C-alpha cells in the first residue's frame, strides 16, 4: 500500500506560539559549551546530548499528537514522512526530506538542509568528533519509542563536518506490540 501523503506541518506551525530562532540557537550553543566544559570528552558530550534529546522526545510526542491531528500511521514509511513534513516543521519550522529507503522499508534517511541549531556555529579542531546536533537524534528516538517503535538513529552527514546537508539515518529495530487491555495500576 502506498503511504498516505501527510499534510504538511505549515498550518500547525502557523498556529503554535513561536519564539525567535536565534534565542533557541544561542541557548542550545550555551548548553553544548557547558557540556564540553563539564564532561571534557567529546564522546561523553555526544551521549549527554542524545540523552537530553531522548528526554525531550518522550515529552514532545504528547504535544505533537495533540496539536497535529495525526492519527496512527499505517507503516514506518508513513511515520518517516510525518516526522519529516509535520514534526520538524511544527517544532523547528523546517522540513526534512525522506530518502534512501532500504529494500525492507525499515531504514531511511531524514535529510535536513536548513537546521536552526547550527546558525553561527563552527566546530573548532578540538571538537571534530562532536555531533553538534545529537540532541535531534535523541528527540526522534525518544518520540518514536513512545509510539511503540524502537529505533536506532545516527548521523551520516553533517554540514559542520563539511558535508552538503544533515542526514539522520533512522533504523526501525522493532515495533513493540501494544498490550490490550492495559493493565490497571496496582
Amino acid at each position, binding site marked *: 500500500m502506498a503511504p498516505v501523503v501527510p499534510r504538511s506541518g505549515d498550518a500547525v506551525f502557523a498556529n503554535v*506560539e513561536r519564539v525567535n530562532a536565534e534565542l*533557541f540557537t544561542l541557548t542550545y550553543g550555551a*548548553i553544548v559549551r557547558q557540556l564540553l566544559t563539564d564532561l571534557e570528552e567529546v564522546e561523553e558530550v555526544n551521549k549527554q546530548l542524545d540523552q537530553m534529546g531522548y528526554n525531550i522526545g518522550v515529552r514532545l510526542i504528547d504535544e505533537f499528537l495533540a496539536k497535529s491531528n495525526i492519527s496512527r500511521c499505517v507503516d514506518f514509511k508513513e511515520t518517516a514522512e510525518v516526522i519529516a513534513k509535520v514534526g520538524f516543521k511544527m517544532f523547528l519550522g523546517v522540513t526534512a526530506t525522506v530518502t534512501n529507503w532500504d529494500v525492507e522499508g525499515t531504514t531511511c534517511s531524514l535529510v535536513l538542509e536548513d537546521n*536552526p541549531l547550527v546558525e553561527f556555529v563552527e566546530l573548532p579542531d578540538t571538537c571534530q568528533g562532536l555531533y553538534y546536533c545529537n540532541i535531534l537524534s535523541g528527540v526522534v528516538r525518544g518520540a518514536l519509542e513512545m509510539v511503540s517503535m524502537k529505533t536506532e538513529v545516527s548521523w551520516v552527514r553533517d*554540514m559542520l563536518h*563539511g558535508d552538503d546537508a544533515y542526514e539522520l539515518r533512522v533504523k526501525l529495530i522493532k515495533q513493540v506490540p501494544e498490550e490490550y487491555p492495559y493493565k490497571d495500576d496496582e
Partner: protein
Amino acid sequence: MIGVGGKIKQYSSVLEKPLSKGRQEVSLSAFAFLFSELVQYNQTQVDNIAELERRLEDAGYAVGARVLELFCHREKGNRRETRLLGILSFVHTTVWKVLFGKVADSLEKGTEHEDEYMISEKELLVNRFISIPKDMGTFNCGAFVAGIVRGVLDNAGFPAVVTAHFVPMEGQQRPRTTILIKFADEVLRREARLV
C-alpha cells in the same frame, strides 16, 4: 561514517556566511523543552540553589556576549552604546524585542541606590512553564536571563551584578520577575565624568 571523500564545503568559515536577518522562528515549545533540559541538567551538577542559579547565569552570559555583538552589528549599524542609559535602553528595547518578541514591561531606576536599575517583566519567557517547588526557595530560572543581561552589559564595558527576583503582584496569581542590575563603581564614576 562522517568525513568520507567528496566533501562539499559551502563556506570555509562561518564568518563568510551572509548574516541572517534574524526573523526565523521556532516553536515556543521547542525552546521550552530545550530550556527545561538545561535546567534539569544543571540540577544534576550542583548541590545548592545558589550554585544552580550561578550555572544558569553562566549559560546566559555566553548568550549575552554573542547577542551584543550580533545586534550591534545588525540593528545598530555597528555602533555600540557608551552611555549608561543608552546601553540600558538597548537591553530593554533592542535585546528584548529580538529575543523575546516584545519590549520589556518596564525599566526603572532604583530609588534607594544610585547604581541600581530594574527591568521587570510580568511573565518572563523562561518562567512561563516553570513552577518552583517549595523546597527550592527563592530559585528563579530568570537567572538565565539575568546572565544574558550581564553578558551584554559586561561585554559593552558596563560590568554589573545582575540578579533575578520574583516580586509578588497584588491581584495576580503569579509574581512578576524583576532583573536587578547593580553597576560596578567604575561605571558610575565614568558616567559622572561624561556629563
